[in-house]
């Protein structure tokens, strides 16, 4: 699923702090803000509902006013003033430069590699950034939990120049082996994407409630490169189902700035109010 294509909006207001420490922001806010900062002005960005939309709107309101947002529903270069409730929210169409059919979105925009950045969420991720949004369990035909499925994710993962994955980190989500590869990251390491003919470069960042991971340029395994303020390396390791690699010079993510928090809260508040 594109992040939040299911219930991330609800999650935004419900989440509690992972570290237990009192902080003037919650982890969803931190994830949103960290994601927002990765977006370069002028980039063409394939956005989903929830955190990606919040991050994109925040980026457009601050350092990246020319961010070019495309949603799979067909809205091209849209500039939503409030958080969209669904991937095809009227706000996205009303504020778009144009709205086109889905064949044009997938065949003309996504497939040939026009998209710089695509956002994905997941229920499970492995050390090579492969993700699962299809089911939890041992059998496709008899799943323990059935998830929404691929939506746009499989081809977003394949064709965007960069992919940013947003996911909360835990032993349930960061697993040694995911139950189903819905969308391909780096497969089982270097050369896997090429073997499958995928034109995009794969995951660039995995942004979690613990910190930020990037693939090692050689091995393609995810490495923890930054910790959010107040999170320890031990916590990140503890919440990972594999032997997590940690960068030698690990950074600390900059704390949320006031304007970032203000904008994110304003967006989320308006969205919740809308649904009351």
């Amino acid at each position, binding site marked *: 699923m594109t992040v939040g294509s299911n219930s991330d909006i609800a999650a935004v207001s419900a989440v509690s702090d992972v570290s237990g420490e009192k902080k003037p922001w919650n982890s969803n806010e931190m994830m949103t803000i960290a994601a927002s900062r990765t977006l370069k002005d002028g980039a063409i960005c394939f956005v989903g509902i929830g955190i990606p939309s919040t991050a994109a709107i925040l980026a457009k309101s601050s350092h990246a006013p020319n961010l070019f947002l495309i949603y799979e529903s067909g809205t091209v270069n849209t500039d939503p003033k409030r958080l969209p409730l669904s991937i095809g929210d009227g706000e996205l169409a009303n504020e778009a430069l144009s709205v086109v059919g889905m*064949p044009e979105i*997938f065949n003309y925009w996504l497939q040939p590699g026009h998209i710089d950045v695509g956002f994905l969420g997941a229920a499970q991720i492995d050390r090579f950034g492969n993700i699962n949004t299809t089911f939890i369990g041992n059998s496709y035909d008899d799943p323990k939990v*059935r998830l*929404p499925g691929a939506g746009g994710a499989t081809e977003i993962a*394949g064709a965007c120049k960069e992919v940013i994955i947003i996911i909360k980190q835990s032993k349930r989500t960061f697993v040694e082996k995911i139950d189903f590869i819905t969308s391909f990251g780096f497969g089982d390491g270097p050369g896997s994407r090429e073997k499958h003919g995928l034109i995009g470069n794969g995951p660039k960042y995995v942004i979690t409630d613990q910190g930020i991971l990037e693939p090692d340029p050689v091995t393609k395994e995810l490495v923890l490169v930054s910790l959010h303020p107040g999170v320890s390396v031990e916590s990140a390791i503890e919440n990972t189902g594999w032997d997590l690699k940690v960068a030698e010079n690990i950074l600390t993510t900059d704390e949320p700035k006031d304007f970032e928090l203000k904008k994110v809260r304003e967006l989320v508040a308006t969205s919740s109010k809308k649904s009351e």
Partner: protein
Amino acid sequence: MSKFLSLSEAISRYVHDGDTVALEGFTHLIPFAAGHEIIRQRRKNLTAVRLTPDLIYDQLIGAGCVKKLVFSWGGNPGVGSLHRFRDAYQSGWPVKISIEEHTHAGLTNRYVAGASGMPFAVLRGYFGSDLFEQTSNVSTIQSPFTDEKFLAVAAINPDVAIIHAQQADKNGNVMMWGITGSSKEAVFASKATIVTVEEIVDTFQPKFNSIIIPNVLIDAIAHVPRGAWPSYASGYYERDNDAYIAWDAVSKDRESFEKWLADEIYGESGAKP
């Protein structure tokens, strides 16, 4: 050639037990009223195709109309799961359904192939995903010009496509604007087409991002104001998000769902807001 019919007459004529139906509309202009009429007419064994089987297909599945679901993203957008779908798929209530699952790109291109009168379409997709192994109607195809393999998806040609649009003119042409998803392709791909519309107008006025579906592609038009509720119709009404949220509780257990069916669909009140 389009005829103006009542919704009941349109469904009765063009939707039959065992048909492959596609109720399209991506978030916007979802033909809820038509879906409810299908339930009301107690159609069975439908193969129900739709990129996003959200509330509307949860309702059809819960009511026992569907034997197979062809889809690419199944959820209650912004809310959570489709409980009736899960109950039917995982527990066989009220009937066991099978699924055929795609990606949006894949299912969209199944419509494109169907619209194009080709048995297949080609794309870059699915490779690396386990979905490829689980899903029928996909295959690989070799480029005749380069040393690469691509995905081929089989055409889908539904017996009937059902969409909701903003306007019909008196000649039975239809105009829609805003997000139209894969509706145009679904119409071209289908053997019959039913359109429910908000309004019948003398002449269309230009709108950004509008598409027009000529009357020769349409079989029946039913005038059903608010026929997309609780989804929205750009220019007419907004999405009733509370109804999406409320559906979670309604659909969570069989009893509350059956009460909803009785009260809102089979009962006197219909399913109007």
